[in-house]
C-alpha cells in the first residue's frame, strides 16, 4: 500500500500540474484542465482525421463521425425544426465535449472533469444565459409573457408567475447537477466496489469483481446518456426561447 490514501474520492482531487498566477488569481494548469485540453484534441482528431478521405462510401471511422453528426442533427431537427440548424455548431460542440469527457473518464487512472460541479455549472450557465439572451433578441420584452402560462386566470397570476420564474431559474441548476451527480456517484461506486475486490481476496473478490464489470458497462451507458440529456435539454431550451408558447 502506498503511503498516501487512495479512498474512493481520491480520483476527484484537483492536482496542480503547472502553477500559474495571473495577478491574484490562481490560473494553474491542473489535471482537470489537462483532460479538458485532451478532450478538445481528441474530438478534433476524431472529426478531422475521420473525415480526411471524404469517401462517398464511408469506412468505419468516417461512419462513426457521420453517425455522431447525424445524431445531433436529427436531435435538432426533432426538437427545434429546420430553424435549429443555426445552433448546430453550439449543440454539437457541447455534445462531443461532454461525451468525450465522460468517456475519457472511464479509462482507469484518468480524470473525469464532468464530475466537478463547477465545470458542468459553467456549461449550464453559458447555455442558460445564451438562451435567455436569444429569447430577448427574438421577442424583446414579449419574452416575459413566457412566465405567464396560457389559460390561467388573472387571479392566479401572482401565484403562477413566481412559480414559473423559479422553475426557469432552476434550469441551470438541474442541468448541471444532473450531469455532475451521475458522474460522481457512478465513479465513486466503481471505486468502492473495486476496493472490495482487493480486500476480499481471490475467492471472495469474484462477486464484487463481477459487479465492477457490470457497473463499468452501466457507467458507459450513463456517460453517453448524460451527454445526450444535456444536449437534448439544450435543444429544448433553445426551442423554448425561439417559440415561447
Amino acid at each position, binding site marked *: 500500500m502506498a503511503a498516501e490514501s487512495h479512498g474512493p474520492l481520491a480520483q476527484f482531487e484537483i492536482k496542480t500540474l503547472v502553477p500559474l498566477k495571473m495577478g491574484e488569481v490562481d490560473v494553474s494548469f491542473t489535471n482537470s484542465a489537462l483532460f479538458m485540453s485532451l478532450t478538445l484534441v481528441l474530438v478534433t482528431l476524431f472529426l478531422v482525421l475521420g473525415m480526411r478521405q471524404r469517401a462517398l462510401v464511408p469506412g468505419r471511422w468516417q461512419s462513426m463521425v457521420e453517425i455522431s453528426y447525424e445524431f445531433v442533427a436529427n436531435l435538432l431537427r*426533432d*426538437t427545434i*425544426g429546420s430553424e435549429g440548424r443555426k445552433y448546430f455548431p453550439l449543440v454539437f460542440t457541447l455534445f462531443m465535449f461532454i461525451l468525450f469527457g465522460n468517456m475519457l473518464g472511464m479509462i482507469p487512472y484518468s480524470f473525469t472533469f464532468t464530475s466537478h460541479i463547477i465545470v458542468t455549472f459553467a456549461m449550464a450557465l453559458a447555455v442558460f444565459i445564451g438562451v435567455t439572451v436569444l429569447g430577448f433578441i427574438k421577442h424583446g420584452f414579449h419574452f416575459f409573457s*413566457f*412566465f405567464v*402560462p*396560457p*389559460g390561467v386566470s388573472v387571479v392566479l397570476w401572482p401565484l403562477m408567475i*413566481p*412559480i*414559473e420564474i*423559479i*422553475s*426557469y*431559474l*432552476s*434550469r441551470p*441548476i*438541474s442541468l448541471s*447537477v*444532473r450531469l455532475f*451527480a*451521475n458522474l460522481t456517484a457512478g465513479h465513486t461506486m466503481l471505486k468502492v466496489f473495486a476496493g472490495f475486490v482487493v480486500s476480499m481476496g481471490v475467492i471472495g473478490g469474484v462477486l464484487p469483481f463481477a459487479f465492477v464489470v457490470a457497473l463499468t458497462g452501466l457507467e458507459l451507458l450513463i456517460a453517453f*446518456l*448524460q451527454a*445526450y*440529456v444535456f444536449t*437534448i*435539454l439544450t435543444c*429544448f*431550451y433553445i*426551442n*423554448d426561447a425561439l*417559440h*415561447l*408558447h
Partner: protein
Amino acid sequence: MTEQKKSAHEQDIDARLRKARQAAEQSDAKSGPNGSRRSGLALAMRLGVEIVSSLVIGVGIGLLLDYWLDTNPWFMLLFFVLGAAAGLMNVYRVATGIGQGVGYRRDDGSNNSDGPAQ
C-alpha cells in the same frame, strides 16, 4: 442513365435498396421518432433532479430576500413552498410530456418528442 439501360445487377441493387429503406422506415415507425427506450431512460434521469433544483432556487431566493429586507424567516418559508410547487409542476410537465420546464405545450401541435406518446 435511363431505366432500360440498367443491368440486371443494378436492378437487383435497386430492389434491395428499396426493401432496406422500407424496413428502416417500419422500424422507425415502431420505435417512435426518438427511439422510445433511449428517451425513456433519459426521462427517468431528469425527474429526480427537477424537484431538488427548484427547491434550491426557491429557498435561495427566499434567503436572499430575507437577508436584504431583514424579515427572517418569512420569505424563505414562502419561497420554499413556491419552489416545491415549481418542482412538482416541472416533474408533472416532464412526465406527461406537456412541456420541457417553463411554458405549456404550444397549440400548433409541433413535435415535442421527448415525452411519452399520448
